[in-house]
């Protein structure tokens, strides 16, 4: 363990959710790098078969196997695992029942396909179960194999149902082995060692979904973590300029003079035309900043720790992940 105090000391399973388009996978990957920094070992888990982790790290598709994919600043390791529900089911059969050969027969008969696609909740139990196993796993000396696990989880709209495994399998099994397994998984997911983080943008719909998701998790007594506000743009302009722009009072004559002084315009007509176009851009930006301020205030009402991650000029490439990891550490989230 590092000696730094972070907001999530004691948390070993970080579940990252967010509305589609908010950059959930990018944030999960950066969080894994941030947690690994300084010599720790972190497993980044993918559960939806989208190969999103491979894409953000610019790697070929990941197999169902824990493999090292990145080195964190200061020498930690990030491992990744793309959980395939069918493989997880075979694992489960082998681990708990010693039914490895039977697993093959079951696959041929379509039982595994059935269990992982049709049977309600079973897929989620298998996936969260595999993750919980990694959280609990110890080596021969009794030490934890991973310091932390980060899960790139399903989107906000489905997260509570996904994690609320006992409820999920209730229709399938009120008693019996499936139920017992679900209860075991629930024990890990609902413990103080787990935190469910939300990724949001400063836009109306993602903010609303974040607030709804937090309320749902509370109702299901699952542990809510922090809010990662992604793709935050710098305010860029002084407040008085933004205020003036909102009232359409921006000093275009002064702007035109400045443009001329900078030598980016031709004659005076050109200067005032470009000044007008740029003023339009400033007004647009001012509206956007006002909206962002409102959405920031809405997120604050959730009363959870918030972290702001900058919009990456070149998109979320590998260098961008390290930049975000640094921002995550600087704000004490890892």
């Amino acid at each position, binding site marked *: 363990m590092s000696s730094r105090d972070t907001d999530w000391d004691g948390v070993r399973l970080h579940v990252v959710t967010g509305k589609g388009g908010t950059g959930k996978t990018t944030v999960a990957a950066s969080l894994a790098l941030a947690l690994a920094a300084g010599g720790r070992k972190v497993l980044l888990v993918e559960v939806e078969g989208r190969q999103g982790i491979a894409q953000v790290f610019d790697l070929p598709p990941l197999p169902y196997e824990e493999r090292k994919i990145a080195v964190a600043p200061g020498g930690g390791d990030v491992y990744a695992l793309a959980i395939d529900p069918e493989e997880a089911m075979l694992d489960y059969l082998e681990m708990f029942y010693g039914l490895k050969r039977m697993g093959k027969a079951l696959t041929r008969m379509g039982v595994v396909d059935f269990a992982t696609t049709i049977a309600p909740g079973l897929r989620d139990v298998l996936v969260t179960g595999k993750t919980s196993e990694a959280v609990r796993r110890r080596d021969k000396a009794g030490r934890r194999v991973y310091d932390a696990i980060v899960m790139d989880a399903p989107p906000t709209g489905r997260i509570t149902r996904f994690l609320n495994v006992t409820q999920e399998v209730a229709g399938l099994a009120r008693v*019996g082995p499936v139920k017992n397994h679900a209860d075991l998984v629930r024990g890990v997911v609902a413990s103080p060692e787990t935190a469910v983080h939300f990724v949001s943008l400063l836009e109306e719909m993602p903010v609303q979904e974040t607030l709804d998701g937090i309320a749902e998790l509370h109702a299901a007594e699952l542990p809510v973590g922090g809010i990662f506000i992604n793709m935050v743009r710098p305010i860029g302009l002084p407040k008085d300029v933004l205020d003036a722009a909102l009232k359409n009072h921006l000093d275009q004559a002064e702007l035109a003079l*400045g443009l001329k002084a900078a030598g980016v315009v031709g004659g005076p007509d050109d200067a005032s035309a470009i000044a007008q176009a740029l003023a339009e851009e400033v007004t647009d930006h001012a509206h956007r900043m006002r909206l962002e301020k409102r959405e920031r205030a809405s997120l604050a009402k959730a009363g959870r720790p918030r972290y702001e991650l900058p919009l990456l000029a070149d998109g979320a490439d590998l260098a961008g992940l390290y930049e975000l990891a640094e921002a995550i550490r600087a704000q004490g989230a890892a």
Partner: protein
Amino acid sequence: MSKIAPVLDIDAILDDENTRIIVCCGSGGVGKTTTAAALGLRAAERGRSVVVLTVDPAKRLAQSMGLTELDNIPRRVKGVGSHRDSRGDSRGGSQGELHAMMLDMKRTFDEIIEAHADPERARQILTNPFYQSLSSSFSGTQEYMAMEKLGQLRRSGDWDLIIVDTPPSRSALDFLDAPERLGRFLDGRLIRILMAPAKVGGRSAFKLLNAGFGIVAGALTKVLGAQVLKDIQMFVSALDAVFGGFRQRAEQTYKLLQAPGTAFVVVATPERDAIREASYFVERLAEERMPLAGLVINRLHRSPAPALSAARSTAAAEDLESRGEHELASAVLRLHAGRMQLAAREQREQEHFTSAHPTVPIAHVPAMAEDVHDLDGLREIGELLAS
């Protein structure tokens, strides 16, 4: 050398009376539902009788169309007029209508069971705990039921244009796969194995099959528990009666999607992930021989001063800053440089798409400062889509 994609002519699609179905698809969070609603409103105001089928829309968007509950009932949207757009085009005196509905997945499933099974069998299925979870939480059910509802609306003949937005799936392709997945299950060996004891009534007509069943049933009992297995068996034998109906309808809907009156509109934002997903989708639609109309790119950032490049802006801002003059201009030039960089990145993402799919027409919708809350907002998006 920039690659120019053909322009997606939205009005030509909406005005063509042969267009009977528009399917909006794409990854989560790209604005599918908003696009579907905007297309619906525009088509109605250009004289067509339209129903928009949405799956789980954002609350305020639903309210903008007057929808308050998930009840499977198409409701007429108020405030739809005959419309004259900025170019003064109008489709004469013809008066269109817009209806909107939200999908109730469980009710749609129940209705299929009721339509295809006798009352006693229907009751057995509807009360089976296994069916109850399948109909409300199986991850493919929503996709399957959206397609089923689409088929029903089409057969009713009540609307001359149906616009559907696809569910927010794990992957954008799920809705194409769900019917097949359900079909594969219903036709699968597992089903036959589970059905076997019921069919042969205890006499081992097929020794091999029964021996196989014994082993599998033993393993399943061990893993699932006896009660679960019993529930599944009951469910499956009761469902046997409606299998044929399921298959047939899934195939009909699939053919409907391939028919010339259908237009797929793929929706994306100019971000790498969304564009990648859009590419997969375009390829998949081609594989399935589904008619693609084109790509809509939402939330595109543009600058009203495109001639002033990011590099020149930055250099000019640095120059002013070093001289300590014209603070306003230097700050505005910095802002503009950022905007131009963003626009350039978005342009590159779009060019990647166009070099892979040079014939796919594209329509753009610029980023708006605020989300859409009312019909005026939808109307504005419709106009931007068509311009």
